[in-house]
């Protein structure tokens, strides 16, 4: 009982830290976009955390942890019914690490994160109603189904007889799931007006508030103490401490890697790349945070940071517009971190690597197909983009009837 109390306190603290990440995402996104879209971005972030929690309570939790895969057997699809289960909650032998309530809240905070990743990438041009529909479906259905394949003891967790997929805290299951969705939607949605000139050359659209973005990144880093630390699923002293060390080292290495790599590449010390690199390191270590030695964590982090810098330039070359760098950070680094479990650490090996690669592919295909279906459906019914004039005047006025700073404009 005492052990459960200790474990449970840690898990509730971690749930709170993951909740705090939503402030980090909000700050990061506001700062890297223009003033005229601030209310719109905050509205999306509020919608995701509020809708995400409610939908996770109603259906998401029971889709992700169905117990019995009663719809498509073999670990593909199960649903344990609508709403939380008071009878299960009353039984304190539910788990040694946490109560049923804590389990729900911690996992619910995660679910909302996947939707927030999409929000940043589609900023400054998507219709708010269309975004809300897409996010609702994505957070309530797509994310929990993918999660059930691994964390709900579905087919990915036992992909081959000997080796199962390994994703400690969600490089693939959370970050790549959000990243794949973001990639598909920005492809269908198109770039912001002015991002590419008539010859297709990428243009800079500088963010409006870099200090706010910096605060956002540091808040996200703090939130990761809970994101990875809580994914131990108990307060186990050895594991939680190691996970916090690997997490922080990877973040630091990712930031330095991105800052100096972009410095060499562009002859300029770019703070936004530094910040994205920290996040790239964090996403990369997330899949194997409990498997790695400190040195391995540094290698994974620094590679994650470099991947972010290359990813930003790759998206520019591909004429894809991701204002906040969500796809390089969450998708590209997420894939790297997932594969790294087969290259470094306690479970490295060719078999593990192949399982990791196959799982990245399976999750990718599922996310891409389902996002294409939702997005095209929304596009053909309510439409996807605001008009060109609304985009130029800003989504705050066009979609929300007021600006973020009223009579005062920062200049």
């Amino acid at each position: 009982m005492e052990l459960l109390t200790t474990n449970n306190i840690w898990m509730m603290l971690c749930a709170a830290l993951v909740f705090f990440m939503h402030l980090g995402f909000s700050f990061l996104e506001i700062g890297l976009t223009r003033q005229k879209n601030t209310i719109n971005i905050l509205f999306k972030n509020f919608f995701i955390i509020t809708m995400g929690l409610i939908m996770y309570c109603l259906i998401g939790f029971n889709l992700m942890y169905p117990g019995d895969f009663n719809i498509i057997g073999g670990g593909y699809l199960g649903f344990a019914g609508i709403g939380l289960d008071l009878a299960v909650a009353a039984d304190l032998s539910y788990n040694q690490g946490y109560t049923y309530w804590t389990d729900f809240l911690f996992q619910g905070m995660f679910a909302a994160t996947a939707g927030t990743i999409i929000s940043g990438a589609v900023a400054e041009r998507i219709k708010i109603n269309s975004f809300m529909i897409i996010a609702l479906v994505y957070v309530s259905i797509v994310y929990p189904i993918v999660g059930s394949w691994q964390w709900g003891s579905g087919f990915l967790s036992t992909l081959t007889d000997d080796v199962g997929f390994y994703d400690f805290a969600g490089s693939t299951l959370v970050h790549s799931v959000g990243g794949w969705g973001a990639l598909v939607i920005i492809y269908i949605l198109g770039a912001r007006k002015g991002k590419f000139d008539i010859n297709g050359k990428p243009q800079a659209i500088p963010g409006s508030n870099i200090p706010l973005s910096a605060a956002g990144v540091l808040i996200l880093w703090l939130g990761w103490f809970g994101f990875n630390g809580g994914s131990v699923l108990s307060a186990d002293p050895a594991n939680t401490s190691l996970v916090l060390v690997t997490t922080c080292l990877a973040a630091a290495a990712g930031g330095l890697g991105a800052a100096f790599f972009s410095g060499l590449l562009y002859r300029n010390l770019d703070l936004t790349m530094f910040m994205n690199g920290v996040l790239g390191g964090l996403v990369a270590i997330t899949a194997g945070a409990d498997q790695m030695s400190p040195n391995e964590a540094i290698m994974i982090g620094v590679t994650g940071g470099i991947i972010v810098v290359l990813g930003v330039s790759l998206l520019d070359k591909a004429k894809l517009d991701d204002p906040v760098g969500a796809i390089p950070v969450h998708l590209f680094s997420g894939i790297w971190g997932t594969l790294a479990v087969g290259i470094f650490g306690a479970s490295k090996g060719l078999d593990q690597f192949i399982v990791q690669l196959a799982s990245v592919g399976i999750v990718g295909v599922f996310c891409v197909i389902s996002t294409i279906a939702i997005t095209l459906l929304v596009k053909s019914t309510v439409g996807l983009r605001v008009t060109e004039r609304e985009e130029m005047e800003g989504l705050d006025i066009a979609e929300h009837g007021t600006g973020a700073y009223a009579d005062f404009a920062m200049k």
Partner: protein
Amino acid sequence: MKKIEAVIRKAKFDEVIEALHEIEVNFFCYWDVTGRGNEKIGKVYRGISYSTKDIERTLLSIVVSDSFVEKSIKAIIDSGATGEIGDGKIFLYNCEEAYRIRTGETGPKSFN
């Protein structure tokens, strides 16, 4: 009475103000302006190099009596020059009349 308008470097603002105070020119307005000129500013954001022709300067607007015109202009030129392109411009205008609102005084004594 003359009105002097000077477009100066933001970085030279403190020195110019101090030089004007030294010759007892203590009343003037100033504001930040954006303009165009020969200069192009190179910038880099997230790996994309771009240049902007928007140049940021400070504009001083000073009204002085005739005997102060020459030394005011000299003070601005001496304190505001770096020798590089972009040091700015000075424009001189006739000023028809000046009034002190509190007392209704006119002419140079309204601002000295």
